[in-house]
């Protein structure tokens, strides 16, 4: 992508960095966010270090209000427990905190996502005889249904962006934003079909279509994402 700035210390902006920064920006300060492992955790921790110091990070391991001073190695990282406002058991995190809709943003990854925003993290191929067995649901089905809005962060490839997921692990019925290494997608308010609403600098609609397994449409007046600021990029690179 051509977002590179020759003056950027540490080299040009990578598509993954553009994706993580875009996701982090969606997390407004002071909100509560149920954070999945991997890319969501990186983006949420970047948000806390930049524009959203009061973002409440909640991990399914029961750590509420975690303020890790480095990127956690897993959702069970001791640093999450030691910096949290409170640590509760797994029964409590799902029953008292997630299920009643107390948590504003659910932040998930995906192996596959389809035209209608259904997410698969279970199997590629047939469930009874899978081509690739993936880790499975974890907390995702209830994060997807109980949080008031959901952000999915996933690299856009023909393998991951499919007409129909091989297995429906999670269904998102409320507000949804899908953030990829190429741009941003949101559901059409009428049909729920995912449409491209923004492209990252240097990415093209043609490329986004090539990497999507359905006939991808874009909204009129497609936006272009602001490139990362130096502060965002420095914070992200210091995280990793």
């Amino acid at each position, binding site marked *: 992508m051509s977002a590179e700035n020759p003056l950027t210390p540490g080299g040009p902006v990578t598509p993954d960095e553009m994706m993580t920064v875009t996701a982090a920006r969606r997390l407004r300060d002071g909100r509560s966010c149920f954070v999945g*492992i991997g890319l969501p955790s990186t983006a949420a921790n970047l948000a806390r270090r930049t524009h959203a110091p009061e973002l409440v990070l909640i991990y*399914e*391991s*029961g*750590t509420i209000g975690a303020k890790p001073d480095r990127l*956690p*190695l*897993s*959702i*069970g*990282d*001791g640093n*999450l*427990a*030691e910096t949290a406002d*409170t*640590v509760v*058991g*797994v*029964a409590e995190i*799902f*029953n008292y905190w*997630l*299920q009643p809709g107390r948590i504003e943003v659910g932040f998930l990854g995906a192996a596959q996502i389809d035209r209608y925003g259904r997410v698969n993290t*279970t199997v590629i191929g047939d*469930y009874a005889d*899978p*081509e*690739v*067995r*993936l*880790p*499975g*649901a*974890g*907390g*995702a*089905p*209830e994060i997807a*249904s*109980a949080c008031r809005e959901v952000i999915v962060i996933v690299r856009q490839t023909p393998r991951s962006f499919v007409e129909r997921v091989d*297995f*429906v*692990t*999670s*269904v998102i019925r409320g507000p949804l934003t899908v953030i990829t290494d190429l741009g941003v997608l949101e559901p059409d308010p009428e049909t729920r079909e995912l449409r491209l609403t923004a492209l990252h600098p240097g990415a093209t609609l043609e490329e986004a279509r090539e990497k999507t397994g359905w006939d991808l449409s874009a909204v009129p007046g497609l936006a272009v994402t602001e490139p990362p600021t130096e502060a965002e990029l420095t914070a992200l690179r210091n995280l990793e």
Partner: protein
Amino acid sequence: MARVVPLADAVAELVRDGDSVALEGFTHLIPFAAGHEIIRQGRRDLTLIRMTPDLVYDQLIGMGCARKLVFSWGGNPGVGSLHRFRDAVQNSWPRPLEIEEHSHAGMVNRYVAGASGLPFAVLRGYAGTGLAEHTETVKPITCPFTGEELTAVPALNPDVSIVHAQRADRRGNVQLWGITGVQKEAVLAARRSLVTVEEVVDELDDRRGAIVLPSWAISLVSHAPRGSHPSYSLGYTVRDNDFYVAWDAISRDRDAFTAWMREHVL
């Protein structure tokens, strides 16, 4: 009252071929030492239960100890997939592995029902998912008061639950802290239970956020220092992240896996 006995004796006494066994630990306090002892004693046909089966379950499955896995997320936390689990599901190696798959919310509520002496738990979950279609132990239920359509999942009552904790006193009262996961529910839901501990002390003292499992609610306690390695025990040992990363390569190949198990576990 729990008796404090050596780990090999505890596993021999509590874990039998064909049992349902839950070795719990939510990415913290994972009872690796106990899992390795089960492998060494050659237990077979186990139904393994765990919310987050990770490396020690990959090892149990790859060594042919398991007939079935009941779970909600089977991966190498922070790294990727479990290759022995994958090989068993995809290629029946070293033997077929039946799976019963849930979400975390479903699994944890199954333990809560088990610990509560109830036949099932109710939650608002699984709506529209393939799990509701494929998993026999997920059923719709109507609230008798409001008419709301909810989901029922049956209680889990493992034959044996095994957890790792930081400390026990000499009478077998157990104390754990940090991320406490689902350990309490797993122990209280089980018919028999074993807790391995980093340290046996004269008296337990106060710790922020600690929970205590009283001696009379546990069958056996075993002293197993570093018993959660390569996971961690907050205040005692840290996660060996290099090992989690290395496991990805070791476990991809059947021969490399078997050689590693021979050298390090058997």
